[in-house]
């Protein structure tokens, strides 16, 4: 199972790179989705490793997918609101709290 865990780590690091470097809010959200997918991969790998006959980990991965769906819906609604207020989806422009 170690290769699956390494794949998950690589995907997570890739997603983190995207979140920290991109300025477009939608690309940010897409990178977060990649990171959540890496987490699901981890759950499945450990489920296979420790409880292959119970599948508790796989059930939690299903929950993770559901939570990712609702997170995407709320995040995209936030992006729409930000776009209406600021006229762009540049996350650097949203700095009301800093000023």
């Amino acid at each position: 199972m170690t290769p699956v865990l390494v794949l998950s780590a690589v995907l997570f690091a890739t997603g983190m790179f995207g979140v920290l470097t991109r300025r477009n809010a939608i690309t940010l959200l897409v990178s977060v989705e990649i990171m959540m997918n890496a987490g699901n991969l981890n759950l499945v790998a450990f489920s296979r490793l420790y409880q292959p006959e119970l599948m508790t980990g796989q059930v939690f991965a299903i929950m993770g997918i559901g939570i990712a769906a609702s997170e995407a819906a709320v995040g995209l609604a936030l992006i729409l609101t930000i776009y209406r207020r600021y006229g762009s989806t540049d996350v650097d422009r949203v700095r009301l709290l800093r000023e």
Partner: protein
Amino acid sequence: MAEKILFIIFASLAVLGALGVITRTNIVHGLLLLVFTFVNVAAVFLLTQAYFLAVIQVLVYAGAILVLFAFVVMFLNLKEFHQLEQLHGTQKWAVLVLAPILLAEIVVVVAGATWTSVGAGITPDAIAAQGGNVRVLGITLFNEMLLPFEMASLILLVGMVGAIVLAKKEDGASMALRDWTGDEEAAQAVVEQEV
């Protein structure tokens, strides 16, 4: 052996797709590469014998969530994305160092640990003898994991309500105020105050 080769192929394709997602300047290309990544991860799920999850992954991630993203991209002004796509200036170089360090840390920990697996003897045949992956998963989901399952449905409901309230044209706070009190003027005052 064949499984290992397939895993290497699908894993490298998934990583390449993810790298493409975070480097494309065109957001539509990025979304298509995201579908590619998710389908490859679904193939990895298949190789770890999580068959139902692989199907759910394709249906929910590559289907529903991607349609959601595509719709929002259509709502917004696409021309602007190209101008927006520069990376953060100095932050980029810091992350270029930090992300590989994070990756190296996780890989060192994962590769260094010795997993005392109890499932080494469990073969696909053993799961098939119990009625297959989907059956075992369903029994687990609706027995001992029933409470988390219901909580997930509640989270989806909250997410749906939140998305509708946030994305509505009218200002969310004023709308809630008007609905609660029936006071149209007070709601308008909130809108003017915020503007």
